[in-house]
């Protein structure tokens, strides 16, 4: 049985001009010890599907799914109190902006302690020991001094380490990292990615990495889901994805990478932009930007072929 199993997840937002489908028919399965990357451009719904799993979406969101199982338990059947026990404890999340995710009014020690108090209990002394231990685990030098630091006294990299310490404080079985290194410099990014992978292996955690950076995907993930405009367009093992992308969008995205363009004079581009709420095309959502599109693509919505392990959302997979 998979650790997290989501099938047919739909998320719609109520807006003044009607329902906006942010995520459509998403399937996510991950087992312990796996690293899954969800990759896509802004607005592709990659964060929203994970926030829905965590139950962190605002009231304007309508979430529906066929299955939403965590460790065999249907998440939607839990009371909000029960669900809160799982969220933050068994599965936890790291956000993109470490600076704005930490509360500026409390020391980092207090904020890590809060997690432990909520989910673990224990005496104040035990919790402090655990907090110091966590800060050391995520590579913060001199934890005894840093435990009393306020977020503004820390650099971006250090704040992200504190966020990671909070997220792993209760030994979660699933860690969701939403663009954990986008706001950081490359040398710090390398440190944080190494740290996440090291923790993932030590604790045999499942790690879902949300990113837009193909380089980060290539260096960390085992499985990759590619999203476009709220739909999963393909899902493959990482080496296969980079070697033989099945969906035209993935192919176009990979060839737009400057380092893969080789000596060509011009970078290959994807014409047009991602469709918004009011200009969603009929048929395949990618058809206006796709160089293989036919009339069939413009009229009929594609379904993944039944025998296709990549579940490519395309009438004519490559």
């Amino acid at each position, binding site marked *: 049985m998979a650790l997290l199993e989501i099938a047919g997840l739909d998320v719609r937002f109520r807006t003044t001009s009607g329902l906006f489908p942010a995520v459509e028919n998403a399937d996510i399965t991950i087992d312990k010890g796996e690293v899954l990357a969800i990759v896509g451009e802004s607005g592709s719904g990659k964060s929203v599907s994970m926030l829905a799993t965590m139950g962190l979406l605002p009231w304007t969101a309508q979430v529906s799914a066929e299955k939403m199982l965590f460790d065999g338990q249907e998440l939607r059947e839990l009371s909000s109190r029960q669900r809160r026990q799982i969220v933050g404890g068994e599965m936890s999340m790291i956000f993109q902006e470490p600076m704005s995710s930490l509360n500026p009014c409390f020391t980092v020690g207090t904020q890590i302690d809060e997690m432990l108090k909520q989910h673990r209990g224990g005496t104040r002394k035990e919790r402090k020991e655990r907090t110091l231990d966590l800060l050391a685990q995520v590579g913060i030098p001199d934890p005894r001094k840093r435990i009393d630091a306020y977020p503004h006294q820390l650099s971006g990299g250090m704040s992200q380490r504190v966020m990671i310490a909070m997220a792993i404080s209760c030994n979660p079985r699933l860690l969701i990292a939403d663009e954990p290194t986008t706001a950081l410099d490359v040398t710090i990014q*390398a440190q944080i990615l190494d740290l996440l992978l090291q923790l993932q292996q030590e604790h045999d955690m499942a790690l879902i990495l949300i990113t837009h950076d193909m380089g980060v995907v290539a*260096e960390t993930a085992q499985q990759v889901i590619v999203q476009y405009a709220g739909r999963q367009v393909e899902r493959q093992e990482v080496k296969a994805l*980079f070697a033989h992308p099945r969906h035209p969008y993935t192919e176009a995205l990979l060839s737009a990478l*400057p*380092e893969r363009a080789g000596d060509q004079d011009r970078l*290959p581009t994807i014409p047009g932009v991602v469709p918004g709420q009011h200009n969603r095309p009929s048929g395949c959502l990618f058809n206006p930007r796709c160089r293989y599109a036919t009339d069939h693509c413009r009229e009929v919505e594609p379904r993944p072929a039944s025998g296709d392990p990549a579940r490519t959302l395309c009438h004519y997979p490559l």
Partner: protein
Amino acid sequence: MKSQELPKDTATGGDAVISAVNLTRHYHVKTRPFSPPAVVKALNEASFDLYPGQTLAVVGESGCGKSTLARVLTMIEPPTSGQLTINGRRVELKEGQPPPRDLRREVQIIFQNPYGSLNPRKTVATMLEEPLKLNRPELSADQRRERALEMIDRVGLRPEHADRYPHMFSGGQRQRIAIARALMLNPKILVLDEPVSALDLSIQAQVLNLLSDLQDEFGLAYVFISHDLSVVQRIADDVIVMYFGQPVETGPASEVFTQPRHPYTQALFSATPVADPNRRKERVKLKGEPPSPLDPPPGCPFAPRCFMATEECIQGDPPLESVNPRVKVACIHVPKEFD
């Protein structure tokens, strides 16, 4: 102001459009009341020549002085010391004084965030015409409009976009508007401060192609500031790698990228993820983080994080020295390659 003797480009024989010699910019920062202000050395002795049609990339992490360099080059701030020559004219600025208008015209800047750099209350056409109004008073309203429409077409937007407001555009389109506005006065130099890092991958390629078309068409010189090495490798002719306000390695992009010599350059290149799962590599790991500019370490600023550091490194700040006729490196451990 008098014309200066300028270095010649050996390939084309043209004059450098920007020539910078030991550009330095220090800031005075108040740390606490009643104590004397501390000096932050945001930019230390940057020197380079840039020729028409060429791209100079400035690479480094946040706080390394890239944006300070942009501010000095665009004459937003005067350098604390050093010489800046633009288009053959020596720039002499006083603190708080605007530069001469005809000089300002030659250098334009494009910022990272196209959401913040466009006035939300002005239409595209108004924004494009504004520089003409100020600098080309002899043009009539119709002529201004015509030029704005020409430029809108040139950067790949449609004529009907002229009367729309910035919020009606996507990020990539806004960056095109910012580029159009910068080009209205036919500048010779564009300073691009992380122009594509806020854009999605598929849009990034479109904007990079546009920039290289415009460079060919107008013979523009680009100062391209970026932290994204894969982009830099593609478009740069020359590279300056900066760390803690100082250039640590300079040279032709082809050479710096194939054979990085300074340990920081090596670490930076190896930390950059490569989009190829078959090439997962052992990284040159850097310990710690860049030092605080208020509390600089003794000697070489990179020494506390450097894997090659020795006792000698903390004795003194290594000067930027030629290791061969093309490349300069500021490290005492990099051997010279002269015969």
